[in-house]
């Protein structure tokens, strides 16, 4: 079977775009081929700084023939029908149609059109210009004389030549002939810009293409270039008694900057090693795209670095290493200057007697740098975070003064010279500068760690001060952007709010922290400046608490969504999460327990500000919960409606539920509850009413079956005990209380008929079924559970 080879040679393609471009090229060409009936055995895309290449093996030499049959009218049909058929089938006269006999209905005309398949090269020549013109580069450009006309070819950088060959292994392949904006396809390419001669290289197929490029000092495969770079770097480092500080992102980038990697070692003065190692690494990485080396034993950074050059230089690379060394030295001189300047007094603030980092904080405040136009300045934001960190401190076991101090200093490094030059060092530099001015170790650590965790695999801080500030920072961000309605939508999340929420979730769960997110959100929402609302708006708002309640509820549901994603990633059953979270939405009230005040777990020693009453989810037909703090000191949560804003407790409950459902009692009770719910659903629909009143105990005593009497008592006890256990946050105990229902429920279903003729008795039994369902709702909404 023949193979196809395509190469698009251009001026230098940005490193970050190469891998995706190779994949896009493969996908677009193979999709177009398959769409035209050309299936292949294998395809591979490649990229170097100057070329995209595609090899497709095992293509058929031509498309399969296509045969289409089009059924027409009956023989002898009116002329109008015949004419219409001829037109639609593209026939000149009815003689060209075939006549087919259909046993029952007689004879019909059938038009048969046969389209012979095209030669594969012709198909390729047809599809390639369109693929090249419509190529999905993240950014593309026009160039040269052709760009005077509208609609000229766009490519990532000027496209120089196109190589396209097609043919079986045993023969000389043919050029797939096509043309795009004056560039005509051929079977020649060029080698390395500096190391190969200018003469064109004749290519037949993929195998000799790769070999010819290798001879012309081009390694086609990115992964092979990466392998060679890393291998040579390690060997050279080893010879020096050092090891490479590996960096996959940098390796990928460097491999996209060279066609022929040549690894060299550069040097800088040892005196620069006084600069924090992260700074040295950032400097050398960002500006020079070089790897740093460290002592294999001590792990300390060495004054050497690894350069990946693109040429084999005549002098063995001495000039290149020397040149790179000079640039690194100049950059490190700058870094050293920043490092020293940042630890000294700030011009204009020297007289303030503030410590250096505090001077930067003052400057940051003085500059009035806007954090977000609707959320005020960085200074205002820092004040909010500091206040919240202080309040959270007791909850996480941190010293309030330290938490506040760390939060105040956390953003001060944004105005240091070093972070101005290397934004990715924010936090880390703050920590160094905090240490340098003698801050407590926990405070200094929190300055760095308050940004963490940055994602699902980032480290979660454990020092209480760090936890307090990290939570405060993220919660302030989330509440702020919720307040101004800048929430993530679809793939758009410009303020990384999903990441912030995940950060809160991980901080809380991994440190066992108890916080009531809704209370915090509602309290913090009042601290957000209301820049949008005009004074008259504010006056006319009927219920100021309303807005706050709605926003906080919405934020909570965002947390729930992120929690579900997180737990699912951790392998938890999503139906159990749904079953627990569904309790936040109140439904029918419990028929047995009378007035129920949902017990909210009282989390540890909470700060004063966190103790505002929880949010009541809005219910149909009622006004919204009174969100005003101070007014409703009693928890007005609807019966059964639980504010699920303590993430740790949600997770504990999910875990306990999972264990319970693994037991025989659990499985059985789940089945019974579902059965009860099914019967209820059918009967309630039939009767057009709900049976959510409490069962009439007297009626049961008078006329009910023995099993009914046992069950109503068992339900009363189980629900009471389960509630008490939930109130103690003893979810295992709650499950255990419910497990005692198994026997009575089973006996009830065994012996008692629900749909009896006596309407009073029937109604009461339906209420009893409802009571089973209600009892299980003390721990979870069983209807959400699969199985």
């Amino acid at each position: 079977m023949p193979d196809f080879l395509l190469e698009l040679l251009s001026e230098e393609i940005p490193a970050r775009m190469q891998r995706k471009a190779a994949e896009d090229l493969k996908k677009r060409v193979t999709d177009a081929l398959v769409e035209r009936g050309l299936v292949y055995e294998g395809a591979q895309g490649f990229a170097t700084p100057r070329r995209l290449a595609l090899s497709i093996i095992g293509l058929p030499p031509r498309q399969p023939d296509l045969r289409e049959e089009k059924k027409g009218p009956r023989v002898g049909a009116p002329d109008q029908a015949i004419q219409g058929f001829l037109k639609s089938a593209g026939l000149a006269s009815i003689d060209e149609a075939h006549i087919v006999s259909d046993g029952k209905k007689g004879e019909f005309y059938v038009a048969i059109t046969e389209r012979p398949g095209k030669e594969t090269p012709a198909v390729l020549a047809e599809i390639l210009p369109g693929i090249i013109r419509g190529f999905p580069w993240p950014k593309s450009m026009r160039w040269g004389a052709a760009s005077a006309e509208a609609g000229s070819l766009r490519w990532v950088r000027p496209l120089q030549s196109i190589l396209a060959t097609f043919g079986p292994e045993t023969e000389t392949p043919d050029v797939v002939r096509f043309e795009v904006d004056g560039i005509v396809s051929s079977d020649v390419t060029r080698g390395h810009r500096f190391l190969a001669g200018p003469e064109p290289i004749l290519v037949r197929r993929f195998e000799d293409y790769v070999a010819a490029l290798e001879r012309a000092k081009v390694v086609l495969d990115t992964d092979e270039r990466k392998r060679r770079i890393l291998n040579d770097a390690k060997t050279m480092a080893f010879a020096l008694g050092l090891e490479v500080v590996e960096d996959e992102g940098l390796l990928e980038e460097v491999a996209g900057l060279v066609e022929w990697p040549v690894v060299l070692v550069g040097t800088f003065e040892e005196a620069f090693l006084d600069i924090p190692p992260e700074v040295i690494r950032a400097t050398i990485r960002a500006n020079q795209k070089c790897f740093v080396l460290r002592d294999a034993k001590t792990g300390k950074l060495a004054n050497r670095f690894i350069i990946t050059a693109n040429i084999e230089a005549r002098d063995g690379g001495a000039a290149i290493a020397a040149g790179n060394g000079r640039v690194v030295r100049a950059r490190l001189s700058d870094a050293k200057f920043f490092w020293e300047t940042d630890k000294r007094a700030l011009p204009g603030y020297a007289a303030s007697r503030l410590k250096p980092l505090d001077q930067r904080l003052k400057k940051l405040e003085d500059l009035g740098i806007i954090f977000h136009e609707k959320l005020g300045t960085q200074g205002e934001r820092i004040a909010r975070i500091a206040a919240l960190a202080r309040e959270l401190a007791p909850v996480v076991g941190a010293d309030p003064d330290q938490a506040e101090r760390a939060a105040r200093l956390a953003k001060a490094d944004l105005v240091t010279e070093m972070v101005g030059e290397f934004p990715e060092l924010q936090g880390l530099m703050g920590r160094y500068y905090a240490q340098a001015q003698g801050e407590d170790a926990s405070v200094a650590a929190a300055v760095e760690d308050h940004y963490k965790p940055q994602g699902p695999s980032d480290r979660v801080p454990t020092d209480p001060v760090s936890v307090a500030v990290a939570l405060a920072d993220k919660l302030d961000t989330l509440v702020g952007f919720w307040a101004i309605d800048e929430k993530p939508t679809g793939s758009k999340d410009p303020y990384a709010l999903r990441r912030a929420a995940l950060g809160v979730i991980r901080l809380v769960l991994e440190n066992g922290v108890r916080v009531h997110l809704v209370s915090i959100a509602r309290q913090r929402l009042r601290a957000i400046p209301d820049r949008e609302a005009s004074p008259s708006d504010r006056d006319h708002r009927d219920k100021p608490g309303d807005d706050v309640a709605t926003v906080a509820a919405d934020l909570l549901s965002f947390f729930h969504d992120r929690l579900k994603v997180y737990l699912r990633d951790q392998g938890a059953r999503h139906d159990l999460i749904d079953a627990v979270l569904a309790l936040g939405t109140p439904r029918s009230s419990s028929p047995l327990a009378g007035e129920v005040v949902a017990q909210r777990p009282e989390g540890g020693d909470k700060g004063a500000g966190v103790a505002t009453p929880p949010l009541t989810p809005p219910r149909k037909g009622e006004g919204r919960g009174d969100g005003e703090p101070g007014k409703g000191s009693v928890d007005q949560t609807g019966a059964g409606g639980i504010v699920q804003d303590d993430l740790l407790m949600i997770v504990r409950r999910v875990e306990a539920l999972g264990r319970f459902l693994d037991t025989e009692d659990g499985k059985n009770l789940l089945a019974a509850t579902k059965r009860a719910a099914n019967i209820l659903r059918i009967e309630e629909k039939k009767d057009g009413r709900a049976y959510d009143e409490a069962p009439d105990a007297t009626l049961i005593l008078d006329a009910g079956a023995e099993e009914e009497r046992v069950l109503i008592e068992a339900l009363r006890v189980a629900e009471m005990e389960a509630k008490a256990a939930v109130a103690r946050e003893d979810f295992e105990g709650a499950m255990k209380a419910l497990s005692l229902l198994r026997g009575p429920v089973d006996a009830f279903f065994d012996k008692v008929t629900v749909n009896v003729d006596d309407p009073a008795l029937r109604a009461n039994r339906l209420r009893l079924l409802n009571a089973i369902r209600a009892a299980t709702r003390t721990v979870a909404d069983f209807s959400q559970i699969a199985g």
Partner: protein
Amino acid sequence: MNAPDFMNPTRSFQGLILTLQQFWAGQGCAILQPYDMEVGAGTFHPATTLRALGPKPWKAAYVQPSRRPKDGRYGENPNRLQHYYQFQVILKPNPPNLQELYLASLEAIGVDQALHDIRFVEDDWESPTLGAWGLGWECWCDGMEVSQFTYFQQVAGFECAPVAGELTYGLERLAMYVQGVENVYDLNFNGRTGAEKVTYGDVFLQAEQEYSRHNFEYADTDLLFRHFRDAEAECKRLLDFGEPQAGANDQRHKLALPAYDQCIKASHVFNLLDARGVISVTERQSYILRVRELAKACGAAWLKTEGGGAA
């Protein structure tokens, strides 16, 4: 090369400049002189900004002193200057072998490509004040950025048709490299030795010190704010006056170039105010926007002139 030793680009700063001029003159470029106004980059020269617009072919090369008031370091930093030289080449449309021409120009000034590692590293150029952008690279020599290479896609808010190729050489950096000097002030300016020798420091150190003081401490900000407003108003006034009358025979704009001078002036005054630290972060955006509006209007006017290709 047969040039005398003191003109050797690897020994003489002016020799390097003259070699580049000769090279690009050999490619048919008009060798222009610097624009006689303060600009932040060679791109601001009307020979680039305005000539990049419209259909007419254009080839030019020139040295342009560039002022970056914020980059002043009182002459104490060996790599940073508030006044430095750029060598600017503009070719419209860009020839297909522009990369090869660029590499040949480096050979001409003594960068041996069998010894040195030249790289084209992604750098998408954008000038918010000029409403311009293009794609290209920063060109590295052994890890040091020595030039910028840009295919202009848009200038003053208008699509470039055809596209111009722009090369900007950082002359001091290149000279430091080929002369093997670590401090810009140690560059040999005139290529002579002994008592005859003039260094970059001899020419510019005092200026760097004085202008740093001026830019950061002494420039009169009230006066500068006024200058900004005046330049902006004058630019708009000239644009209005130069606009062709409805129904007149000649539909060309008559004052595009003088109006553009005022735009350049506003841009430089803004840079000075920025260096003085009197423009807040939020105001900064709005000043940039105001300059861009002027640049766009000047570009539109230029397209109505003969140079801009108007009939």
